[in-house]
């Protein structure tokens, strides 16, 4: 073989070797690729990370979020009406240690675990008393057999219960060995149950009502977070190298509500409603005259039928916009007196058989004419008997040519608009004034006796409070301060809606008329209440919905059977001579053939409320001044210091014993009461070996 041939042969052999190497290399890469592909498919479909490996994948730090503690809602005296505390839900990992026992094939350990589970079941049954021990045991064992890692055993436990449960057999071994799982959730507690529930309100997912909703940003606080790392002894601690935000707990809000007043009003109103199955709902407002602070706000209503329970279902005080009836006659009277059209309540007007052209006849006037034989009536008496005729006549006579003047008054009393309040959702009044679509020839007269003008009960109470406060109309309010750890952060002082709705003299005149309603008029059930009350009754028929009215029925107030919906109101203030509180009670009926008057159910409820509030406040009771000087105890020197036996006459036994025995002497005594004689006598030489005999009477 020539050299050239030899070189060619070498090249061929070299190339073959490279080809072989490359072939196997390619084969290896192909195998690797296939293996990777298989692994990808396996990982995506059936791969489970072994427990022993999982720990290596966990981050060394974990983010921990701190939820703030929601602020409390306090009554005016600081008693909590809503506060937060965690509640605990109890679950169990039934599969705990199952795999471990199985892998070790340790049937004894499994049997032992089940025996502990039986003891646990007995303890749970004894604690919760909702299921038998056998039921609990069955639930646990069934859960273990079907691999349940999250068996719910109990929800909403308090801390004491949780601590007892944590000491039960099996659970005391902890989560990893005993399978106990506890989940915490912050829950709102209302210690007074449904008392003022609509005022306090709540925040639950999409439902947000009352003070809880309006003051949510203040009450909620701010979430915090920190990164935590695990220490050598497996505790989780804050990782100082990471960022953190400190949790900020919510602030408290102190309301103006008086729990005792709220309790009294709730109870009185509840009793009255429960005694009348035609009554659908009842409300009560108690407002402090000088400040406008609301001391009680009750909103009780039944469901669609009388058989349903009474509950704070809706805030009718704020939302129930409606014609208020005769309680609005005070609006007309106040305007007439303030404008000088009625200079005296004894001013008379002709009775005209109770007829004002264009209006319905007032039959009360016919009764009045028949009983008295008179053809005129005083404004005072017209107010006492709540005559529609009298107020229609006065309104038409004095404001007929200038109705705007009366409506200006109505707006100045803030009856024509919703005002800012601590709970949102106040209904907007509806006023049929000149120029509006609802205005007609009779609107002025009907407005004068309470129809044609729709307002909320809070508007009415605020107006009467203005009269009680000598013309100064205060803005009603429910929150007096925001507090943090007992310190006031922000306070909300009383404020005015209108500094002067009338002169003090006008307010006094109208107060006299309101007092007369209780003494001589439609609210005599309040006569003799423990505090004198001044106020006005009102009965109004409620406009029915088209469904309630029935097809083809054009009467807005009656259904086809002649039934109607009534509301009866009493609103006033007490004590009448120096008003401290304004009070309003309204009851609403179902569709009924009966009438409900402000002088009946509301007046009875108010009487009970007034009598009970009277008993709570000692400022209304006569003061006692001591007529004899009460002797003051004089400090007497002890026997040991004076060297003589002290005069113990008039002393109590305790003091006498102390005086003798602290000087080292001995004492015997007879009787009870105060020392009347002693042996040895006072002033004789002290000898501590001698027993002092005391006679008490």
């Amino acid at each position, binding site marked *: 073989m020539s050299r050239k041939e030899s070189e060619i042969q070498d090249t061929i052999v070299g190339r073959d070797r490279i080809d072989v190497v490359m072939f196997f290399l390619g084969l290896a890469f192909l195998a690797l690729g296939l293996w990777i592909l298989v692994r990808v498919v396996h990982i995506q479909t059936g791969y489970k990370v072994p427990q022993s490996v999982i720990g290596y994948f966990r981050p060394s730090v974990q983010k921990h979020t701190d939820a703030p503690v929601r602020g409390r809602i306090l009554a005016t005296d600081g008693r909590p009406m809503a506060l937060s505390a965690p509640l605990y839900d109890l679950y169990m990992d039934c599969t705990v240690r199952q795999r471990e026992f199985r892998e070790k094939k340790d049937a004894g350990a499994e049997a032992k675990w089940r025996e502990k589970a039986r003891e646990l079941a007995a303890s749970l049954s004894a604690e919760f008393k909702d299921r038998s021990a056998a039921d609990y045991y069955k639930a646990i064992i069934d859960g273990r057999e079907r691999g349940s890692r999250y068996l719910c055993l109990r929800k909403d436990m308090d801390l004491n219960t949780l601590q007892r449960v944590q000491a039960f057999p099996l659970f005391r071994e902890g989560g990893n060995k005993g399978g106990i799982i506890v989940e915490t959730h912050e829950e709102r507690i209302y*210690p007074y149950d449904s008392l003022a529930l609509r005022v306090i309100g709540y925040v639950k997912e999409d439902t947000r009502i009352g003070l809880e909703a309006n003051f949510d940003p203040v009450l909620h606080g701010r979430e915090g977070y920190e990164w935590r790392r695990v220490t050598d002894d497996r505790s989780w601690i804050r990782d100082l190298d990471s960022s953190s935000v400190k949790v900020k707990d919510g602030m408290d809000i102190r309301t103006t509500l008086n729990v005792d007043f709220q309790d009294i009003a709730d109870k009185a109103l509840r009793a009255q409603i429960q005694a009348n199955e035609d009554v659908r709902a009842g409300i009560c407002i108690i407002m402090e005259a000088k400040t406008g602070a609301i001391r009680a706000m009750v909103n009780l209503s039944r469901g669609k039928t009388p058989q349903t329970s009474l509950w704070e279902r809706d805030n009718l005080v704020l939302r129930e916009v409606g014609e208020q009836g005769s309680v609005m006659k005070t609006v007309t009277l106040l305007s007439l007196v303030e404008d000088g059209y009625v200079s005296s309540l004894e001013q008379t007007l002709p009775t005209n058989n109770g007829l004002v052209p264009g209006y319905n006849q007032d039959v009360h006037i016919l009764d009045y004419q028949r009983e008295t034989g008179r053809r005129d009536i005083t404004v005072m008496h017209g107010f006492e008997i709540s005559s529609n005729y009298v107020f229609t006549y006065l309104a038409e006579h004095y404001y007929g040519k200038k109705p705007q003047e009366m409506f200006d008054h109505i707006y100045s009393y803030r009856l024509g608009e919703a005002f800012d309040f601590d709970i949102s959702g106040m209904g907007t009044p509806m006023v049929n004034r000149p120029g509006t679509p609802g205005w007609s020839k009779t609107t002025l007269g009907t407005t004068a006796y309470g129809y044609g003008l729709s307002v909320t009960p809070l508007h009415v109470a605020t107006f009467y409070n203005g009269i009680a406060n000598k013309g100064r109309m205060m803005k009603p309010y429910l929150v007096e301060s925001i507090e943090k750890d007992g310190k006031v952060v922000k306070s909300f002082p009383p404020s005015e809606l209108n500094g002067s709705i009338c002169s003090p003299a006008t307010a006094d005149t109208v107060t006299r008329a309101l007092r007369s309603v209780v003494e001589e008029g439609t609210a005599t059930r309040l006569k003799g209440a423990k505090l004198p009350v001044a106020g006005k009754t009102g009965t109004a028929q409620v406009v029915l919905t088209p469904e309630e009215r029935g097809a083809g029925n054009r009467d807005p107030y009656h259904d086809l059977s002649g039934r109607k919906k009534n509301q009866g109101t009493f609103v006033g203030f007490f004590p009448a001579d120096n008003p401290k509180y304004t009070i309003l009670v309204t009851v609403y009926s179902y569709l009924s053939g009966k009438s409900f008057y402000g002088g009946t159910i509301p007046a009875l409820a108010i009487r009970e409320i007034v009598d009970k509030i*009277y008993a709570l406040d*000692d400022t209304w009771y006569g003061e006692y001044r001591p007529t004899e000087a009460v002797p003051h105890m004089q400090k007497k020197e002890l026997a040991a210091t004076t060297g003589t036996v002290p005069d113990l006459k008039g002393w109590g036994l305790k003091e006498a014993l102390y005086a003798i025995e602290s000087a080292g002497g001995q004492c015997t005594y007879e009787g009870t009461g105060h020392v009347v004689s002693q042996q040895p006598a006072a002033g004789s030489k002290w000898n501590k070996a001698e027993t002092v005999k005391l006679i008490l009477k």
Partner: protein
Amino acid sequence: MGIPNIGATLRNSFRAIRNGEFLLRVRADKYYMHIMYLFLLMWLTIMLSLQVDKTLTQAGNNKAAIEELRTHHAEKEAALVKLRSASATEARLKRMGSQAALPKEPASVIKKK
């Protein structure tokens, strides 16, 4: 340094370690104070780190204890407040068959002359 030198150095080092002469061979005695100081610093760092961990653990435990107390307080407060209401008191008295009732007159006040 060639590969044989590295091998020789490793062999020498190994022998020196085996004979307990390594630190002397590398003249570590010259840096004795520095080494001791370094150890001291390391010891201090570890000790302080452990103390910080211990303090933070204690702080965490305290926080949990405070939270537990707060919960107890809130639960007790709610229970007591509930008992304090006038109607709850009235109902309790009635249930116990007591003749006592809520006052019908306000408390009398005796004022100084």
